[in-house]
């Protein structure tokens, strides 16, 4: 350390100290579970605090005796140990008393659990499907469907730019629900097991392929609530946020109208005449949202796990198989069917991967238009 920096050292130390205490103060509330915004989440919070304080009380009593013993019954103070080594009455007491305490805990816990399992149909039913690594939401009554993709920029994750306020807790499209209505979530998964956790509602329900789990909530307070996937689901498990926006009924109705209109416009696009450039441009976006996590930005894949698309024979010369893989997935491999994407998106992303990374030059360079996807689907209907 140079002399000059030494001179500044105390100042620096104070600065670091202030920084540290500030951040500790700001995070003081992050020590405990939050109450959440539903009746159930409040009940759960009360239960959590009750059990916590019972444990603290037991701990204080038990460890006081132990610490007293460590203080008063050392060899110095008590050279000759007592000789007792059993006492039936005491032993019965410390078997029965904990048992009674446990019953006192089990009663409120069981009551809350029964309340949580009151699972009648909701006013609004939303199917939640976990994918590697995003969530799909389908509003069953209104026939709305969309994906909520993680929206944190890779540059933030790799520390190239400062991290935003909602780092790793932001998505490109929030789930909207109205206040005061009973919402039922039907939770499932498309590939591996995920888990849909919304701490503010005290809902955590595993999303399991082939199964539909249910959870419900009634939220009283409008706001934006953030949660995460909580079951290890592969590479990007840590980057799979959940964001729910709770709004007044009127705003919700307006949003539903907009979503329906957008879906109609999307359907119209299928019959439009597409140029290669348009398809590639759109396909690049689709690729970035759906494919890049495995097949990587330059289509190089990850050797041994995810195959390369750049220079792949199918992407070069086999258009039919290319469409088939996206529609059906690959049996026994991580590649799933993407038939849930729109015809436009599928055509665009296939065209993009057949054009990008020099694939167009080395292969037949054939493009795929939305009609090709429609035709692929036709014979099966």
């Amino acid at each position, binding site marked *: 350390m140079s002399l000059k920096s030494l001179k500044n050292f105390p100042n620096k130390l104070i600065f670091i100290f202030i920084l540290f205490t500030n951040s500790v103060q700001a995070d003081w509330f992050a020590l405990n579970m939050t109450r959440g915004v539903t009746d159930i989440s409040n009940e759960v919070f009360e239960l959590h605090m009750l059990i916590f304080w019972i444990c603290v009380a037991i701990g204080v009593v038990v460890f006081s005796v132990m610490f007293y013993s460590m203080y008063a019954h050392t060899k110095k103070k008590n050279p000759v140990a007592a000789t007792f080594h059993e006492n039936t009455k005491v032993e019965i007491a410390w078997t029965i008393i904990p048992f009674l305490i446990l019953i006192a805990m089990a009663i409120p*816990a069981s009551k809350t659990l029964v309340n949580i399992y009151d699972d009648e149909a909701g006013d609004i039913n939303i199917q939640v499907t976990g994918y590697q690594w995003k969530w799909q939401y389908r509003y069953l009554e209104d026939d709305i469907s969309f994906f909520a993709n993680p929206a944190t920029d890779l540059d933030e994750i790799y520390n190239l730019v400062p991290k935003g306020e909602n780092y790793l807790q932001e998505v490109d499209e929030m789930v909207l629900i109205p206040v005061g209505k009973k919402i039922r979530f039907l939770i499932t998964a498309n590939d591996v097991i995920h888990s849909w956790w919304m701490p503010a509602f005290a809902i955590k329900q595993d999303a399991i392929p082939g199964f539909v789990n249910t959870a419900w909530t009634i939220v009283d307070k409008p706001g934006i609530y953030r949660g995460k996937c909580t079951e290890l689901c592969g590479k990007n498990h840590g980057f799979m946020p959940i964001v729910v926006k709770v709004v007044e009924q009127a705003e919700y109705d307006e949003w539903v109208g907009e979503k329906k209109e957008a879906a109609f416009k999307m359907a119209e696009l299928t019959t439009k005449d597409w140029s290669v450039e348009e398809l590639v441009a759109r396909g690049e976006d689709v690729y970035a949202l759906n494919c890049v996590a495995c097949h990587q930005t330059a289509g190089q894949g990850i050797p041994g796990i995810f195959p390369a698309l750049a220079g792949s024979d199918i992407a070069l010369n086999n258009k039919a198989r290319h469409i088939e893989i996206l529609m059906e997935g690959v049996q026994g491999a991580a590649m799933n069917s993407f038939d849930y994407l729109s015809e436009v998106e599928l055509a665009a992303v296939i065209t993009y991967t057949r054009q990008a990374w020099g694939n167009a030059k080395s292969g037949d360079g054939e493009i795929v238009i939305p009609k090709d996807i429609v035709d692929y689907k036709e014979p099966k209907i």
Partner: protein
Amino acid sequence: MSSAVENHHEDHHHGPAKGLTRWLYTTNHKDIGTLYLWFSFAMFLIGGAMAMVIRAELFQPGMQIIEPEFYNQMITLHGLIMIFGGVMPAFVGLANWLVPMMIGAPDMALPRMNNLSFWILPFAFFILLSSLFMEGGAPNFGWTFYAPLSTTYAPPSVTFFIFSVHIMGASSIMGAINIVVTIMNMRAPGVGLMKMPLFVWSWLITAYLLIAVMPVLAAAVTMMLMDIHFGTSFFNAAGGGDPVLFQHIFWFFGHPEVYIMILPAFGIVSHIIETFSRKQLFGYASMVWAMLSIAILSFVVWAHHMFTVGLPLAAELFFMWATMLIAVPTGVKVFNWIATMFRGSITFETPMLFAIAFVVLFTMGGFSGLMLAITPADFQYHDTYFVVAHFHYVLVPGAIFSIMAAVYYWIPKWTGNMYDERLGKLHFWLSFIGVNVTFFPQHFIGLAGMPRRVPDYALQFADWNMVSSVGAFLFGLSQVFFLFIVIKTVMGGKKATAQVWEGARGLEWTVASPAPYHTFTTPPKID
């Protein structure tokens, strides 16, 4: 060797062979115990190095050192290595060294199988670790390897992982059978079941648990193998299978496995507290009954790991109540230890410090376990850092502190040398501080909402993660210091007496220090 001279009338002298073949061919329970202990120490350091990588990546938000893909490999291998390579072989090593000496037997009942059960272990872990260098990388699906992430979506190395788990299982089953047969058949006359030292009791129960559940683990990985290579669909919903079935099978193994890693610790701590309190253990019979009840209950609580998979209400209630019930026998054990200390004549040598820390910190892990048992609250805790804090509290200052306590307590008997008390105490305090600084803040970040098994996290968790990482580096470094202390003690030191500790009770303290290569070739006389 003086015993060699005394035993001159025997046909020929049985000392240890020389060189490498002594360790390769050995059927001596003390040699095999030593092998197990060194092996587990090596695995502990390797698994620990992986924990350092994990904590280094989590030191700050953002990806700094490794990629998410490799992070998942690290958490998977860290878990597998610490459980199957660190804690379990360490306890088997202690059992090998101590069980025959504690019951007055000359050796283990099945010495050749003993050799085999050890020597297949290094191969199992060689296979597991070599998967790091395979195409697609090492297993990356967590030590709980839930299907279908571990089947359809697994890297190709999963097949090697399955083979490796099979070998570990075979080793454990052989070790367990050996211990049961030894305890049931080779106790010296007068050592009745209810006169056995508690460490022997704890291992008898543990061995039965192992025999009961390791085949279940073998079944789970075999079904995975079939799904991956032979077209079955046990866990594949698309083929009519059930991914939740995997979790039921896994945790039917997994929960007793948790107690396999803690029951021998109960035995060890009972001996050490008794010795350094200079007072007979309080409630011997209730200690035995408590361990038996814990073992039996461990078979009916597995689904408390699965409260969020969508079980019916009746199942949630049953598994919550059954799990809470475990607090009763566990409480009895803690009360007995404290009653043993009460009005004792206590000194605080290193083994006692570790044992007291065990009682306090294990109980804290028990409290968080009780909180986790409360199903509605578990919906908030499940798969967050609160769970990570919980199971590390019962495994690190629980199981691992008990192993360290055991090493300090019995190493004078093994080597004939006393360890350096000053260094031992320093090691204790470094470990004690390190472990709490590492894992206590994880309760906070878990309750505040940080999921487990993530390589990166939101900004509100940054401060406590940094504290946790600093604690982990301190704890990790202190274990290198522990290695130094152990080597120093093996190399030399103050000579130990046969009794070693003033208050020690049990047959192992009646033989010389270091314990002769063969002990109790004729059964000792028990009053």
